């Protein structure tokens, strides 16, 4: 096997519990974003577009859909004979099996996978962020700095820094301190959860972390601070593009809506950095004779006979005559039936809003400028005909048959 310069380890095992109803059956990286993508498409495509041909995807929480979605990796051109994409779930060994205890432990348990390819560097990523990034620039900086570890960082508004790992750097960009979710952040430079490690160093760090019984086995909380305390050469790699953590319903909704602001915030059109996806082949979508579609994104397989404004319609969505969909996200297979009114809502995969329903700020109050919370209809649900849901909340009705 030819020697590899780097491999990527993509952490995709998180439940994403703050996405609530959207992750009832699937892991967060498998949630649909921007109509036709799943969140993991962004990191996987970034890997491929950066020339990485070997990716380990660490799964744990409800991995069925994610496993079948990734498949052989063909959809991302990752069906490489000498590498490719490998789904790495927790497993059983001679001394029993263990769940992944944390991000660092997940990779610790798969050191064999890394050793099999014996790369010089390991890129550690999260599978639940929306961004386009060329990792080769980060690797070049890592080498130029002679770093042991590089951490990709970005600036956020100071009041938000406390939600992230906060980094302080010296004039040359070397990291001098790292604090995971501090109450009082020292700077507004935060870690994006993207790390490049020298492989040997990573191995030693993970073995040491495993031996520390007090550790939470987390990169941000334990491994990075420990390496910094040991005086390792740790550099920040500044990133200035679009990056979103879509970990909550609000941030998920907002990031989706940002796609509408001018068609796209990122270059989904440039074929050199295209976001690849394992989509089924659906027919083109059909816009009916009386339809009105404005400021919206519509995916293949959908039929729009009614009205939709400021919304994202995923694949195989159906909006019937007389139905109105405003500022909403319809996930794959969602149906909005005749005369229904859907405002600022997320309709889960294959859920149905039956005729005459009113979701969100009702039609008669539409022009009063009040904002409302987001309504979430969990996947495979039926909202019975003529239901009225005014305030933002998550709704679980009985399962659709």
């Amino acid at each position, binding site marked *: 096997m030819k020697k590899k310069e780097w491999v990527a380890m993509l952490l995709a095992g998180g439940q994403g519990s703050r996405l609530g109803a959207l992750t009832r059956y699937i892991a967060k990286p498998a949630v649909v974003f921007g109509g036709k993508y799943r969140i993991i498409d962004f990191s996987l495509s970034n890997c491929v577009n950066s020339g990485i041909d070997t990716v380990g995807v660490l799964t744990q929480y409800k991995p069925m859909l994610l496993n079948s979605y990734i498949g052989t990796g063909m959809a991302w051109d990752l069906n490489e004979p000498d590498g490719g994409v490998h789904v790495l779930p927790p497993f059983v060994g001679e001394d029993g099996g263990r769940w992944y205890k944390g991000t660092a432990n997940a990779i610790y348990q798969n050191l064999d996978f890394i050793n099999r390819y014996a790369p010089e560097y390991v890129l550690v990523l999260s599978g639940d962020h929306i961004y386009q990034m060329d990792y080769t620039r980060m690797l070049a900086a890592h080498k130029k700095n002679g770093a042991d570890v590089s951490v990709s960082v970005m600036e956020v508004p100071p009041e938000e820094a406390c939600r992230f790992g906060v980094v302080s750097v010296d004039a040359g960009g070397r990291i001098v301190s790292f604090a995971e979710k501090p109450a009082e952040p020292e700077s507004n430079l935060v870690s994006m959860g993207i790390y490049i490690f020298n492989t040997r160093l990573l191995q030693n760090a993970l073995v040491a972390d495993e031996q520390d019984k007090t550790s939470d086995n987390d990169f941000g909380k334990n491994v990075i601070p420990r390496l910094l305390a040991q005086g390792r050469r740790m550099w920040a790699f500044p990133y200035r593009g679009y990056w979103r953590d879509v970990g909550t319903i609000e941030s998920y909704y907002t990031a989706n809506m940002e796609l509408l602001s001018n068609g*796209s915030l990122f270059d989904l059109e440039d074929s050199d950095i295209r976001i690849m996806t394992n989509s089924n*082949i659906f027919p083109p979508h059909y816009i009916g004779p009386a339809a009105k579609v404005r400021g919206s994104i519509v995916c293949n397989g959908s039929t729009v006979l009614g009205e939709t404004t400021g919304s994202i319609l995923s694949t195989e969505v159906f909006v019937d005559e007389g139905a109105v969909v405003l500022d909403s996200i319809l996930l794959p297979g969602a149906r909005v039936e005749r005369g229904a009114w859907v405002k600022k809502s997320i309709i889960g995969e294959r859920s149905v809003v039956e005729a005459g329903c009113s979701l969100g700020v009702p039609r008669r109050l539409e022009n009063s400028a009040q904002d409302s919370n987001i309504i979430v209809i969990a996947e495979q649900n039926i909202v019975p005909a003529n239901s009225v849901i005014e305030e933002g909340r998550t709704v679980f009705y009985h399962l659709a048959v």
Partner: protein
Amino acid sequence: MPQAMGLITTNQIINLGKLTADRPVAAVPFAARYRLLDFALSNLVNSDVRTVGVITPYHYRSIMDHLGAGREWFLDRKVGGLFILPGSNYGMKSMNAKFLLKDLLKNVAYLKHGRERDVIVSSANQVFTLNYRGALEAHEENESDLTMFYREEERALRGRRDNSFFIRLGEGDRVQALVPAAALTAREARRLFLDTFIIRRQLLLDILEWYKTMEYSDLQDIIAENANSWQMRAVPFRGYLKRVETIEDYFSGSMDFLRADVRRELFGKENRIHTKVKDNMPAYYGVHSSVTNSLVASGCRIEGTVENSILFRKVNVAKGAIVRGSVIMQGCVIDRDCLVEHVVCDKFARVERGALLKGRLSAPSIVGKECVV
């Protein structure tokens, strides 16, 4: 379950004007994201056929570009798979054979090496969806030599299609004769042969041996000549069919996809039409766009008005532009304040600011590939 191998012929000369200037009819883009060939190919793979040979014409670049290794049709396999069979460069446009014997003779190895009992043969210029499973089972059960598919037409088609054949039925579903259009009675002109049939592989090999000195024959003429010698049955097809032989066929067939019944039949889940995947972003509709009764593919960006039209992938319709009753292929740009009506724009055409382009519903204007208006 009986297994058959597939054989699709795309080496047929059909003139759709500029649309076939540098591509065979099989590769002509159709219905917003497909090529005509996808229909014949999907019918085979949806009937569980996993060995498919495609006879290509001399200008096969667009077909190869589209098919690749056959991944999207599940044909990148160890056992069976996709076989590209180079056709002959016969250069005689007057021939117009549908199943040219020379093309089959040149690729006889494909047929010889097959292990299946039967071969499903079809042309690649028809839009229809048909699952062959039932017919194939009956074909083997009856130990038929040939099973011919035909469409029961409502009206007689006599005189229009000169190289079409029609089926004359004998007792039950027996085929008594295959009749060329010119020799028809009005009643017979309703059973149009679908250019699609199942033939026993050994019989096909025998025919190639018997007729090898007459390589410019059309296989369907040979079948017609020998109708009485073989066990030949007919299977009716009652679904939607559009045979694309003229630009009018192409245009009216495209517009048929604005009908709900046609979309339901051809875009339904059971017989999904498979095609090459490109991973474009979804279509974006601007805040001032107005789109009605149209079929739109991914990657489009629409700021203007679109009515009764078919938009392929990555079409850009600028603010103030109006597109009516047209077929706009992949990557075309309709700039500001244009009016485009009853027009077919081939791939990557640009209609520049303020241009006015009008064809007739019965005779659409065609803008060639990469042309600038």
